[in-house]
């Protein structure tokens, strides 16, 4: 009696284990296929997928043709990535690296399956400098709102939703729908440790200007933008 119960339990465990392996294998296959899509479509011509960041000067940055993706899995929401690579609507109002020309909106498009595989692949690219589970997304944050709108006016360079309509400057990526696109933990890490993730940029460094509570508050506040 006891032996048969044991066997039954062992059997269930065995099936679960096999199932888990197949499942993990599928996710892995997706990531492997996604890596092939990335290579086949020459996405790497414009995107760096291996960290750490190497640019040091304005000239280094100007040589880049697209934003870094070596921390994509720490930065983006998975559902957003899969959708955006099929319908790549402009994120940056201006052309990459330009402060004059409008974004031409001509980013290469992927088919559904390619995009899902590429998403599996990009989600494996994580930065050890982005700690997970720090920012509680979606909850309002007064300290963050005050810092963003009043103390340092982040909207001078970024669009954000104000009374249902995006307002703000053009030289930074639009944050108007940031809750769908960006992980709060990445936004916090980027403010806290900007030189590790994106060392050269037209955005000021806020270390020593905003305190830790304000940086966390801003990351939480941005996670409510939709």
């Amino acid at each position, binding site marked *: 009696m006891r032996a048969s119960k044991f066997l039954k339990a062992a059997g269930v465990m065995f099936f679960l284990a096999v199932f888990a392996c197949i499942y993990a294998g599928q996710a892995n296959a997706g990531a492997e296929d996604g890596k092939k899509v990335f290579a086949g479509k020459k996405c790497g011509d414009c995107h760096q997928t291996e960290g750490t960041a190497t640019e*040091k*000067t304005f000239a280094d940055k100007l040589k880049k043709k697209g934003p870094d993706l070596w921390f994509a899995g720490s930065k983006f929401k998975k559902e957003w990535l899969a959708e955006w690579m099929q319908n790549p609507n402009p994120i940056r109002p*201006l052309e990459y690296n330009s402060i004059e020309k409008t974004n031409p909106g001509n980013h290469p498009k992927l088919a559904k399956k390619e995009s899902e595989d590429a998403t599996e692949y990009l989600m494996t690219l994580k930065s050890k400098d982005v700690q997970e589970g720090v920012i509680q997304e979606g909850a309002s944050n007064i300290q963050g709102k005050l810092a963003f709108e009043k*103390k340092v*006016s982040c909207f001078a360079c970024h669009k954000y939703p104000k009374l249902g309509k995006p307002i*703000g*400057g053009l030289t930074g990526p639009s944050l108007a729908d940031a809750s769908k696109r960006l992980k709060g933990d990445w936004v916090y890490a980027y403010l806290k440790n900007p030189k590790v993730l994106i060392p050269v940029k037209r955005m*000021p*460094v806020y270390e020593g*200007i905003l305190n830790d509570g304000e940086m966390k508050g801003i990351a939480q506040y941005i996670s409510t933008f939709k």
Partner: protein
Amino acid sequence: MKRIFPFFIAVSIVMTFSGGSAFAASADENYKWYCAQCHGSGGKGDGINSKDLPVTPRNHTNPADMKKLTDGDIENVIKQGGAATSKSTTMPPFGSTITGDEIKEMVKYLHKLCNC
């Protein structure tokens, strides 16, 4: 060698804690990279962000406006942003972005722009 070693340590400590960019750029390069997006590459206050700002960026070529500011004011406003001179905080703080020396060079550069 023994005497030079502490010097290297001192230099690397200073470089580590001086904040700011990892490389020194000329005032012209810094202006075109950071300031031009709002003030315009010629300094007229007509950068691409200016249309979407609630306050017009200062026209750095206008001597009447620029003469109201002492060198100390200009340095502080670049370091701490508009709040330093009780102006709009849409003028961002650059004190952690460019070094103190680069800011001093920038003050001279602004004097050239307004010819004042």
